């Protein structure tokens, strides 16, 4: 258990006002209280407009705030347009998945960091998409709100799909992240609860731990590092 205690936890998909009902400072206070070391405030709206942070809270100690956008698109060409528009403006670019075409467009684009809720329509990723995600360094999201918000048959379908995603991600070495996709502070869960739900989605305890700490942390480091030009190219002094 010592390793869990000494880890830093991040939640990379949290929605706030004006898209959803909680203000940014409220989410930050609640997440800090839950034991996170950082959260990503993600704008999600029909216009795919990035709303910057306007944080009125005195920033808590040992707590980092990142900005992100969750891109929603109907087709792949629009998706690529929105992605190229957001590059370098935000810390984390995620794509709202679910639809097969969009999932494919997202994992094949190297600028995307996270493919959010890929199984929201109950369809798992296949081996082609998993391989593409591994090649382009796109993390697959395991959103716990699928388990929290759905009941009955739809939850079973999504859980089955998520299990297959986890199995393929393990085989092809795709980065996995667990996010809350929170729409209000009632959707936030503590890091260990996220791990417990991740384990229900077919991860091992270690994978679940890495999914909310080291994998998320490395995505942030990758994007915050100004010396990095692209995959494999970095300015060294």
């Amino acid at each position, binding site marked *: 258990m010592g390793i869990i205690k000494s880890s830093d936890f991040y939640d990379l998909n949290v929605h706030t006002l004006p898209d959803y009902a909680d203000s940014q400072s409220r989410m930050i*206070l609640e997440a800090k209280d839950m034991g996170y070391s950082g959260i990503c405030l993600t704008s999600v709206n029909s216009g795919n407009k990035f709303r910057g942070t306007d944080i009125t809270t005195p920033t808590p100690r040992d707590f980092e705030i990142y900005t992100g956008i969750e891109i929603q698109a109907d087709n792949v060409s629009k998706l690529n347009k929105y992605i190229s528009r957001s590059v370098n403006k935000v810390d984390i670019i995620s794509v709202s998945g679910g639809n097969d075409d969009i999932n494919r467009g997202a994992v094949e684009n190297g600028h995307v960091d996270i493919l959010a809720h890929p199984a929201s329509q109950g369809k798992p990723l296949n081996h082609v998409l998993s391989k593409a995600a591994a090649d382009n360094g796109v993390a697959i999201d395991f959103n716990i709100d699928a388990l929290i918000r759905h009941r009955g048959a739809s939850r079973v379908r999504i859980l089955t799909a998520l299990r297959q995603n986890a199995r393929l991600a393990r085989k092809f070495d795709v980065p996995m992240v667990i996010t809350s996709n929170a729409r*209000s502070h009632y959707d936030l869960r503590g890091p260990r609860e996220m791990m417990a739900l991740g384990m229900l989605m077919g991860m091992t305890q270690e994978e679940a731990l890495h999914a909310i700490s080291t994998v998320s942390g490395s995505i942030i480091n990758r994007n915050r590092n100004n010396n990095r030009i692209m995959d494999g190219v970095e300015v060294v002094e």
Partner: protein
Amino acid sequence: MKILPPTLRESNRYLAISITSEGDIPRRDLVNEILFCAATLLGDAGSSEMGIRLMSFEENKGIIQCRVDRMWETRAVLAIVTAIKGMRTRIKVLGVSGTVRGATEKYLLTQDINEPEPERKRTQTIKECKLIIDVGTISGKIVNRNNNEIDLLSEDPHSLEILNRSNTRYFGITVFDIKDKEIDV
């Protein structure tokens, strides 16, 4: 009937929990909801192996008993709880211990070591407030206040749409969002 000797008893863990909710939650409703969630998530057979019991519950804090080897499942069940009797609820696990006394002493009796609020003059007591966001304003009544956190009830159609989308009753804001105002509810 003789009780089981200690060596033959199942060994347990005790989870200290605290509850955040839109309203007051009676003990009975909480127990029912947790057991219901266990049954929907893991089935009757699974939940019979976990041995979930609510040991004590007062002032939104309590202790839950479960089997040692089913701790992660129990955490998952507690995380699944979203609403009790239509009121949004969140259960937070404060910590785990091997004895009831340990859990109580370590996690329930400790007081929040928040820095004391600096002395300041209360200028005004407000019951309503207005929030300016970049797509318009949200104005409403202040319903609850807990330290720096405020719940805001708003009834105009645009706000209701946002609330519906996020499936809550109140807007969650903080005192820092309201400028130059002291709040006393």
